């Protein structure tokens, strides 16, 4: 590494010459490389805006199905098996490969977007993603149209979810599970509890407040607190007013933790004493780490979101996927899943089915909300491409402190 340069002048001269020759050869080669690389890239870049076309359906001969979903999002027994899925395999003979491949809408999208754009198989025939991401996938033509005739049970879909603005008539997507984003707090440290989002800005909680890094939940709740109906046609001013509130609370050090799924760690370690959080999680951590936390729907309303089944454009097993969706839209099956995952099922009749399993569960407003609860929960309206870019950038700027 550190060899001394030879002292003999002749040898020195030779080395210098050799180095020069090496250098020019290298630079010539890299020049050629650059040119070739640029050409390939230009070739790749052309013709990318066309929407891909759906893959041919081979379901009749290929009785398999790959389902990508989030962690802890299906009923699981002590052996790590999924009872409802085993029953489905037995009934239909379709072998399901259930893959916990989604841990974040954005990272999952980042992983598969190039294949989707080319109409290639992404290794999943069925994926469950959140409303806004499904909105984007539909806009880009990255998902296949569902044949609702082969999903007769889709008639069980609850009325309020039948015509979301991103997919009127549910032609491309059907909900899997949903939930509320509301407020929660540590009952021991905040004995008084909270009732509204503004209570999070109380000076006594300074530096101990957490919010979600999901724009539509955090900004959605602040907008609701400001009296804006997030489902209606609100304007950029309404959004910016909420961003201002958010920025002020972050800059003042009132809000300390802004996270995705990992916010539960902060609740457990008590870095966070009060937070904006997801309904199903609180049931789970109360069961895991002692009954310490309480969830509430803020007085001005909670946000309501759903994760939806979609069939990626490159999947060659569309009928198998539809068969699985149809299976999970039976009220009895939906109730079984809901009892385990603690999220809201979109299937009508599941509540009655749940009565048979556990009456107390059926009364839980966070799993089987009644009309009154639902009337205070709002779905963040769909954004168009321009709005999505602009609002995302504004929200990320706060998260990065810029």
């Amino acid at each position: 590494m550190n060899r001394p340069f030879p002292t003999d002048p002749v040898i020195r001269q030779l080395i210098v010459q050799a180095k020069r020759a090496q250098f020019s050869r290298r630079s010539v080669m890299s020049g050629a490389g650059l040119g070739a690389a640029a050409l390939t890239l230009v070739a790749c870049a052309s013709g990318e805006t066309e929407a891909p076309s759906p893959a041919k359906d081979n379901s009749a001969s290929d009785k398999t199905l790959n389902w990508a979903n989030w962690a802890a999002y299906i009923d699981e027994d002590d052996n790590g098996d999924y009872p409802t899925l085993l029953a489905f395999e037995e009934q239909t003979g379709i072998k399901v490969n259930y893959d916990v491949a989604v841990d974040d809408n954005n990272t999952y999208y980042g992983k598969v977007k190039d294949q989707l754009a080319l109409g290639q198989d992404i290794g999943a025939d069925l994926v469950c993603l959140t409303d806004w991401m499904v909105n984007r996938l539909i806009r880009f033509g990255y998902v296949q149209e569902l044949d609702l005739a082969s999903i007769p049970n889709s008639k069980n879909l609850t009325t309020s979810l039948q015509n979301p603005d991103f997919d009127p008539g549910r032609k491309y997507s059907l909900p899997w599970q949903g939930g509320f984003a509301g407020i929660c707090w540590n009952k021991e440290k905040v004995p008084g509890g909270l009732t509204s989002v503004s209570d999070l800005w109380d000076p006594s909680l300074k530096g101990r407040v957490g919010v979600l890094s999901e724009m539509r939940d955090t900004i959605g709740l602040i907008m609701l607190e400001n009296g804006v109906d997030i489902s209606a046609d609100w304007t950029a001013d309404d959004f910016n007013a909420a961003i201002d509130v958010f920025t002020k609370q972050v800059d003042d050090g009132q809000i300390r933790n802004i996270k995705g799924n990992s916010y539960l760690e902060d609740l457990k370690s008590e870095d966070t004493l009060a937070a904006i959080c997801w309904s199903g999680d609180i049931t789970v951590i109360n069961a895991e780490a002692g009954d310490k936390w309480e969830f509430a729907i803020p007085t001005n309303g909670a946000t309501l979101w759903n994760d939806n089944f979609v069939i990626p454009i490159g999947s060659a097993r569309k009928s198998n996927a539809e068969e699985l969706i149809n299976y999970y839209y039976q009220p009895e099956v939906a109730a079984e899943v809901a009892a385990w995952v603690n999220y809201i099922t979109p299937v009508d009749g599941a509540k009655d089915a749940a009565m048979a399993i556990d009456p107390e569960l059926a009364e839980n407003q966070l799993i089987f909300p009644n009309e009154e609860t639902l009337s205070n929960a709002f779905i963040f309206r769909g954004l168009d491409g321009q709005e999505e870019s602009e609002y995302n950038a504004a929200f990320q700027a706060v998260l990065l402190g810029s």
Partner: protein
Amino acid sequence: MAFTAFSTGTATEQGPRKSSRIALLLLLPGVLYLMLFFLVPLVSLVITSLQAPLELGDIGQYQAAFRWENYATVIGQYGEQILRSFLYALLATIFALLFSYPLAYFIGVKARPWPLLQNLMLVLVIAPFFISFLLRTLAWKQILSDESPIVTGLKALSLLAPDAYITGTPIAVVFGLTYNFIPFMTLPLYAALERLDTRYLEAGSDLYAKPFTTFRTVTLALSMPGIVSGVLLTFIPAAGDYVNASRQFLGGSGTAMMGNVIESNFLVSLNYPAAASLSIILMAAILVLVTAYVRRSGTEDLL
């Protein structure tokens, strides 16, 4: 020695012209590898960094262009995060050096009479690598959390204000960076100090040099290659690190470094040109800083 040097010299005298083709052939896999996995991505990064948004396009839709303003925009928008990255990396490098030097000196020089102790201590330095870097960082997040014994203890001793906290602050991030890169600093220092000839130190004291002067003129000078490689191995990855400063780990919204800005622009905002130009700025800045540093410390041969 002179004999063998002479004999190899004569052997290679006729060698070069004959074997130059073979040498080129042997180089080929390496050159191809570099072209495919370094040059092509680099060119694609440069092209991406110059893209312009598609007119009336959706989120994440860009077209080929020559928009060099992208660079000015990101520097204007994220100047603070860029400077912060280098500041944190510099602090972490200094702390790691201050911590590692005595450690490496002890293992490499003082513990020489006890090889077993030497090996044991080396294993202790390397052992953390057996556990994932992410898990170790998460563990620190727990250790430094608000209700942890460390934080409550510091508060009880009035060393920390009652409403103060550690996670999510620059202190936690610099601490995490320092902790995670200490082995990268210690090992090259150890390798340099282990070869230190202690007779030079004796000579120094025989010539009436104070211990500090001996240290400065002999030990430090001889361990310079170790310091340089340790500093490079720590500073370069630390400046681009996005785990420690991330909000999911030890950082908060006020500690974002360049890696976090790139991640957010790439994955969430889908602003690929901004992410690409930031990556190139990071690369160029590190290259300039490292070159200046190596020049100054007079060890060009290392590169």
